[in-house]
C-alpha cells in the first residue's frame, strides 16, 4: 500500500477541501456584516428572534419523546420478542425495513390521508413523535439488535431465573445495564435525526427548529448561515456522544 502513498494523500486532500471549505465559508458568511466587516451580528439578531426559542424547545421535546418511545416501547418489545416470541423476528425485521422502502414524504402523504382527526392527536406537535419513531426505527433497531446479540440474552435470563430473580428484576438489573451502550447510542442518533427533521414538520405545518432555519434562510442569509453553523455543532455533539458510547452505530439520519 505504500506505493499508493501519493494517490492516497491526493484523494484525502481533495476530500478534505470538499468537506472543509463549505464549513469554513458558512462560518465566515455567518460572521459577515457586509462591506468587509465581520462580527457576531447575525448571531445577535438570531437570538433576538422571538420564535427561535419556542421552535428549538419543540424540537428538543420531540427528540426526547422519540428517545422515550425507543427506550420504553422498541427496546422492551425487542427484548420480549427475543425471549418469548423468536418466531416473530421476521415480522420485526420487516417493520424495521419498511421506513427505508416507504420514503418519509410518502409516509406523510399516507398519514394525512388516513388521519384527519381527532384534533388531540393530529393537532399537537407531539403527533410528530409517531412518524419520527418510525424514521429512527431502522437505525435504532439495528443498534439494539447488535446489543442484544452481543449479550446472549437467553443465557443471561436463564441464569437470572435460576437464581430466583423475577422477570422484572432481571430486565432492570441485568438486561438494561448490558444494553446501555446500544440504547444510549440509538437515543443520541434519534435525537440528531429529530433535531434536523424537516419533511414531516414542514408538510404537516409544525414550527420546529429545521422549519425555522428554512424560514430564516429565505430572507436573512447570514442568519441562516449562523443557524447552519449551530446545527452542525449540535450534530457534532450528538455524534461525538454516539462514538464515545462506542458500540453505537453512528450512521445516518433522516434529515435529508
Amino acid at each position: 500500500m505504500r506505493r499508493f502513498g501519493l494517490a492516497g494523500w491526493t484523494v484525502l486532500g481533495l476530500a478534505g477541501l470538499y468537506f472543509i471549505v463549505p464549513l469554513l465559508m458558512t462560518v465566515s458568511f455567518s460572521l459577515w456584516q457586509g462591506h468587509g466587516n465581520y462580527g457576531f451580528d447575525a448571531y445577535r439578531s438570531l437570538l433576538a428572534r422571538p420564535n427561535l426559542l419556542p421552535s428549538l424547545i419543540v424540537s428538543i421535546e420531540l427528540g426526547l419523546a422519540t428517545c422515550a418511545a425507543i427506550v420504553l416501547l422498541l427496546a422492551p418489545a425487542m427484548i420480549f420478542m427475543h425471549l418469548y416470541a423468536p418466531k416473530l423476528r421476521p415480522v420485526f425485521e420487516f417493520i424495521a425495513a419498511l421506513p427505508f422502502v416507504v420514503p418519509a414524504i410518502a409516509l406523510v402523504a399516507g398519514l394525512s390521508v388516513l388521519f384527519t382527526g381527532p384534533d388531540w392527536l393530529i393537532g399537537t406537535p407531539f403527533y410528530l413523535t409517531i412518524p419520527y419513531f418510525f424514521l429512527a426505527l431502522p437505525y435504532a433497531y439495528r443498534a439494539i439488535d447488535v446489543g442484544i446479540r452481543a449479550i446472549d440474552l437467553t443465557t443471561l435470563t436463564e441464569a437470572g431465573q435460576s437464581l430466583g430473580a423475577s422477570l422484572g428484576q432481571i430486565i432492570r438489573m441485568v438486561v438494561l445495564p448490558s444494553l446501555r451502550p446500544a440504547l444510549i447510542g440509538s437515543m443520541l442518533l434519534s435525537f440528531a435525526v429529530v433535531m434536523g427533521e424537516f419533511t414531516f414538520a414542514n408538510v404537516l405545518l409544525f414550527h420546529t427548529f429545521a422549519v425555522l432555519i428554512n424560514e430564516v434562510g429565505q430572507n436573512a442569509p447570514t442568519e441562516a448561515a449562523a443557524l447552519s453553523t449551530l446545527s452542525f455543532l449540535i450534530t457534532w455533539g450528538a455524534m461525538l456522544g454516539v462514538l464515545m458510547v462506542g458500540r453505537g452505530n453512528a450512521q445516518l439520519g433522516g434529515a435529508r
Partner: protein
Amino acid sequence: MSQAATTPLRRDGVVHKRPASQGVAGLILPYSVIGLFIALAALFMAAPTVMLAVQSVTDDHGFTLKYLEALGGDNIVVAFRNSIVLSIASAAIGVVAGGLIAYFVISPAMPITLRSAVTSFSAVAANFAGVPLAFAFVSTLGTLGMLTQGLRSLGVDIYGLGFSLFSMTGLTIVYAYFQIPLMVIIITPALLALRTEWRESSENLGATSGQYWRMIGLPVLLPSLISAFILLFGSAFSAYATAYALTSGNIALLTTEIANVLSGDVSSSPQTGAALAVGMIVVMVGVLVISAAFSRRASRWHK
C-alpha cells in the same frame, strides 16, 4: 428426550422453567408490549401505505386507473427521471469517492489519528443534511456565496461559465456531502474484513496489486458494495429537505412534487400525490429486488 427434560438449562427451555408463580399472568406484559409495537406499526406504517395504494386507484365513482396513468404525463416523467438520475449520480459518486477514502484511511501507512478524525467527521457529515446543509452550500457556492465571490474576484465567474448550485449538477454536489461520508461509514467494516493473508498469499503467488483487486478484493467486496449503493440510492431518492431548501421547486423531483400536492401549492388532486408516492415505493421495491438478485449472484460463494 428424557435427558433433555431433566437438563435444567435447556437453550430453548426458558418458557418451561419460568417460575410457576408467574404463570400465564407473567406472559401478559411481554405479549402486550410486542402487540403494541406491531399494532402501532400496522396503524401508522402499514395502513397509510395501503391507504395510498387504495387512494391512487379510486375516485368519487370507485375504481380507476387514471391517476396511475397520469404518472406517464410529461412533468411527472421528468420528476421521476430527475429523482432517479440524481440518486444514481450521487450514489455513484458516494460509492467511488467514499470507497477510495475509506481504503486510503485504513491503510496501515496512515497515521491512526487521521483515521479516527475521518471516522468521527464522517459520522457528523453523514447526519449533517437537510436545510442546514443546503444553506451551507448557498453560503459557499450560491450566487452570493463566499467561494463564488472569491473566484469572481480572481476573474473566474462560475455562474457565467454555466454553473448553478440550483441545478441537477448543483444538487449532486450537495448530496455528495452526505453520500460520501455515509459510504465511508458503511464500507469501512467490509474493507477491514479483507484479510491480510489474502493479499499476502496473492503477492506470494506472484500476483500484482491490480490482479489482487480484480480477482479477490473486489469480488469479495461486491455484495457490500451493492448494498452500500442501494442504501445511498435510497437516501438520495427520499431526500426532500435539501432539495426543497435549495431549488424551491425549480427542479421537479418526486419528493418536492408530492409535498407540493400535499400542501396545496399546486392544484392537483390528492390522488395524484398518492399515485406519486406509490410510484416512489415501487421504484424502491424494484431497486431492492434487482439488487437482491445481483447480490445473490455476487455472493454465491458465500455461506
